[in-house]
């Protein structure tokens, strides 16, 4: 009993495989007879005796009828498709070439460059503006300062100067 079942399932599997191969090769896809005719005789006999495999044939044909409602996209490739691809490649290549040149960095850093220039300009202009305003105020503060007993304009002698002047005196 078990052996018979095992044998049957093996035959069914072989039938299904043969059916799959035949379905690729069969010219008339949605008709039972030509499809079965494409199978080896042993498989045809099996289909006649096995309900499950006979149903499998029907299912294959029904699925084909259903699927025939879908359009095949392989047919829709336009004749100029290859030319369009090559044009896109050429455009991409020139874009990459442009990206490789040193001037290509300029637009990339343009915004940062503009920002840095603006900041530098601001700092320099502030400094330039503040400079003449500070100079007279220093002069005024020097004039306004009280007179000292010591002449502050003369720089203080350093220790070296003192030693040098002593040496000169000794000579």
């Amino acid at each position, binding site marked *: 009993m078990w052996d018979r079942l095992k044998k049957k399932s093996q035959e069914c599997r072989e039938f*299904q*495989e043969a059916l*799959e*191969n035949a379905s*690729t*090769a*069969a*010219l*008339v*896809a*949605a*008709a039972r007879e030509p499809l079965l005719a494409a199978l080896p005789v042993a498989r045809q006999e099996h289909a006649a005796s096995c309900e499950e495999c006979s149903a*499998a044939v029907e*299912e*294959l044909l*029904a*699925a*084909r*009828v*259903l*699927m*025939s*409602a*879908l*359009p*095949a*996209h*392989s*047919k*829709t*490739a*336009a004749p100029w*498709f*290859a*030319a*369009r*691809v*090559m044009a*896109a*490649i050429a455009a*991409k290549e020139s874009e990459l070439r442009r990206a490789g040149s040193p001037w290509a960095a300029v637009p990339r850093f343009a915004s940062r460059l503009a920002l840095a220039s603006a900041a530098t300009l601001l700092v320099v202009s502030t400094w330039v503006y503040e400079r003449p305003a500070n100079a007279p105020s220093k002069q005024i503060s020097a004039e306004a300062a009280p007179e000292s007993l010591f002449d502050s304009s003369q720089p203080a002698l350093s220790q070296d100067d003192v030693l040098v002047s002593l040496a000169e005196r000794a000579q």
Partner: protein
Amino acid sequence: MPRVPKLEPVRLPPSGEGVPARPGKQQEAAHDRELVRAAQADDKEAFEELVRRHQHRVMAVAGGILRRREDAEEIAQQVFLKAYFSLKRFDQRAAFSTWLYKITVNECWDMLRKKKVRPLVYESDLSEEQAHQVLASEEKGSTAPDISERLEAKQRVERLLEGLDERDRLMLILKEVEGFAIEEIAEVVNLNANTVKVRLFRARRRIVALARKRGD
């Protein structure tokens, strides 16, 4: 009452209608290898030839995932651009077609992630011209063009396909709509051929059961 599409026998050539016939896979792969070598040496014509040879299949895979012609075309272009700029790194250990399919699948999932939509959207695959025809026929109340019927049938099938796992859905579309061979589907979904056969068998069973349940 819902309109039922006409069920007519579908004629499919051995390798699929929309897909150019493939004489010998090994021969093709050898030719691809030559073209890839030439393209790696900056021969643009060789690359253009590769595009021409594979555009239908790339479109089919992209269309199988995205289900919109415009998206499929956009992705197909991106795939070839990506392939061109990474071609020097491609060591030809795998077939060029396998490599291309992988890029296609990845690009499609990226697009879906970015758009945050499900692979099946109920949008028309009709061109603008066809859409105008549908509108015009509706306005006139004409009986002639069955575009709206076809559109309805298409949407019904897409709804049914939503009941399948994403990979099973892609396999079924590639097999039954685009006419891919089992080995090619195996390349696309990165499974072995026997697994593809078993999963296709189950996917068909499921979609037919769903259709019967919904009364389509």
